């Protein structure tokens, strides 16, 4: 088993959607987690200095998707610098440029030192309906929505009605779960730390259940994840199969199984949006807990 991989979340969304506000709120939040942020926008790849001041030194250059040396070298270098921090961050966030393709950037979460957590796309409820049909950026914005594992409607406090309406509309636009609000909990946004590094205060926007899964092969685990009921935003855990250990993960509509990079006890954590657990979730969890996933999934 090698060094633990660092979860990587990409935050995207068009200009003015509220990405930076969200990132700042995460960085200043009272959550006890060590989170590094890389801003992949115009200019240098900025690594948040407040958190990572001692280690960053000279910030590396980068192009936002441009074809040049710096494009290859920049984000790679920034991610290498962040991974080399001691102690390593528990989570890394990349904030993408307004026209950036968050799914393309998310692929960096599959480089050796990282594990892709997922893509959060922030939506401005007052502008999104205009942007998706804009002759210049409509296709870009629609692709961003399609790349999301979680859609976050911002400016909810100022514009509650627009937020509700846009949230309804987004459900038909894009496959990802939609969350309204600026005060979204880290458990939804970044997931719960599976290895129990930090705990979070109870929060009204989600409910969590965890259990010990039975021995299962990776295809069955994949099928179980793919069958998650509506309302499940995140699933993450470790499932044994003989001498192997597999990491299973689901965020939004996308699930993934890979060989675990660390030795841990089997566990599965399920996070649902809202204040109550949807009724289908209990039986669905019980199938993996008992090892009776069966063919019906």
């Amino acid at each position, binding site marked *: 088993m090698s060094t633990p991989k660092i979860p990587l979340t990409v935050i995207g969304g*068009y*200009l003015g959607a509220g990405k930076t506000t969200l990132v700042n709120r995460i960085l200043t939040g009272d959550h006890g987690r060590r989170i590094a942020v890389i*801003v992949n*926008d*115009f*200019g*240098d*790849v*900025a690594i948040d200095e407040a958190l990572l001041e001692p280690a960053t030194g*000279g910030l*590396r*250059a*980068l*192009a*936002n*998707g*441009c*074809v*040049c*040396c*710096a*494009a*290859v*070298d*920049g*984000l*790679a270098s920034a991610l290498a610098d962040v991974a080399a921090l001691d102690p390593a961050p528990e989570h890394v966030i990349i904030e993408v*440029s*307004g*026209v950036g*393709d968050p*799914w*393309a*950037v998310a*692929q*960096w979460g*599959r*480089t*050796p030192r990282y594990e892709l957590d997922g893509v959060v796309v922030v939506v401005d409820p007052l502008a999104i309906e205009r942007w998706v049909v804009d*002759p*210049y*950026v409509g*296709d*870009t914005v629609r692709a961003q929505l399609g790349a999301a594992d979680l859609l976050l409607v911002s400016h909810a406090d100022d514009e509650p009605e627009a937020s509700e309406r846009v949230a309804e509309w987004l459900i038909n636009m894009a496959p990802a779960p939609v969350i309204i609000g600026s005060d979204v909990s880290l458990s939804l946004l970044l997931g719960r730390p599976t290895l129990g590094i930090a705990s979070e205060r109870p929060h009204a926007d989600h409910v969590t259940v965890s259990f010990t899964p039975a021995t299962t092969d990776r295809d069955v685990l994949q099928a179980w994840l793919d069958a998650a009921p509506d309302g499940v935003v995140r699933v993450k855990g470790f499932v044994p199969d003989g001498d192997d250990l597999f990491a299973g993960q689901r965020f939004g509509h996308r699930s*993934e199984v*890979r*060989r675990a990079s660390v030795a841990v006890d089997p566990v599965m954590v399920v996070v649902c949006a809202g204040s109550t657990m949807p009724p289908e979730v209990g039986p669905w969890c019980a199938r993996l807990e008992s090892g009776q996933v069966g063919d019906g999934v």
Partner: protein
Amino acid sequence: MSTILRTGALHTIDPAATGDAVHIADGRILGVGSFDELRASNPDAGVDDRFADAVVLPGFVEAHAHSMAGGMWQHLYVGYFDNRDPDGRVWPGCTTLDEVIDRLREADAALDDPNAVLRAWGLDPIYFPGDRLVAEHLDRVSTTRPIFVFHASLHLATVNTALMEREGINADTMMDGVPKDGAGNPIGELQEPAAMSLAGDALIGMVRSFMAPPGVRAFGDLARNAGVTTIADLGSGPIASDAIAEMWQQVVNDRDFPARVSVFHNPGQGGPAGLDDVTALILRRRAESTDKLRFGGVKFVLDGSIQGYTARVTEPYVNGKDNGLWLIPPDQLAEWIRPVIDAGLLLHVHCNGDQAVDVLLAAFTEATGGQPPADHRTTVQHSQLTRLDQYERMAELGMGANLFSNHFWYWGDQHVDLTVGPERAAGMNAAATVLSLGIPLSIHCDASVTPLGSLHVAWCAANRQTPSGRVLGPDERLDVGQAMHAITMGAASQLRMDHEIGSITPGKRADLVALDTDPFVAGAEGLRDINVLSTVLGGEHHPVG
């Protein structure tokens, strides 16, 4: 002491200066006239007869290149077209995948260290429809030595099995950009930066070599071999970095470096994120300029390339590919260019597709209130699909066009068949339209995207001919005089250097090119067959390699 340079024929690109000899002192042109007259009026001057049988023009000016064009030659060339390296050796194009493999085999055999990575560049799969270079091909070169083939787009690479084994790229690698075969094994193609980064040092070592001093010196050699005495680097490495700016100074200010270089800052490649900070940085750099090295240009990249289907087009690509990419949010462009224009810095904007030009025109109008400052020299770079209505607006706003005319030869057939179709292909790089509207015109090679060659791009603009023999938009062809102007004064003007270079005019710098054939005698058809013999930079001879 002054020198009279006697020529076989002289084209000054300055209607007021005629003759067959140039009087030079202290790196500048003192006079132009007949050899006998200059000799009579300057009896103490020395005579330089080295170009007595050559045809002399002002040194060519290339207003859009990238210094990595030099650095790439530290690695093996496997491109489709013939290409000449900095030492002057011509590498024949590899027109089949077998030829690519043969060239790699030769290079493999010539490497002493069995573990050294074999790195190659220039492969463009658009010329191999239905065929795809994969690890299996490269394994025929070596099953032990890692091999990394960088595609011409710089968005893709192909690697062999030995490299994948070394870097742990295998069936467990789950990434978009690592395509797999039916059995779930990676085929050896790595798409886009995240996937390419899996190649580790094979990639990073190559990319870093592009911006190292030997590569930049090779860039100067390529310029000299093409007859270019002033060349613009439109963004290769972020000059926000003192180390990179100092590297430029150290290499270009060296007396032996054979060209002047105008180095642009591309804020998309790094540097300060704040608008005022960018402007302050470039103003500070501009103050560090010398007679050979110029800072002060700012380049923005708005969209991608046509052959990569990443240019932003109004009408769709004919083969159904999705519209291209924005590299800057269109709604942010005005905000970004305003401080650059206000500070009087030179602004050049990459727009390959016509939709990108729409965005630039709107942003430029907004940033200047529709009343741009006098003599601003804002230039649309590439401007390949710009429409007539857009050129009319560019003329009103006083913007220039630097056209990528080399496309007719390198991708002209693909543009007809695959990208934009015959009608739009015929209107691409509309040089005659540009001139008819009084828009400042230059034409460029965008090296390393296409090989650096001013006479080649002049040939393209004057013939608009594809490899299959099609002539795209014959009415847009330039005559020889227009083409020579575009690669001298036209480009000098867009770099705001026309007061000191671009023509053989008394008072300007003694930057010249000597050719073996007169372009006006060779005619449009013969331009690309003319050989460059030597350049002269500030009075110093630099024979080609």
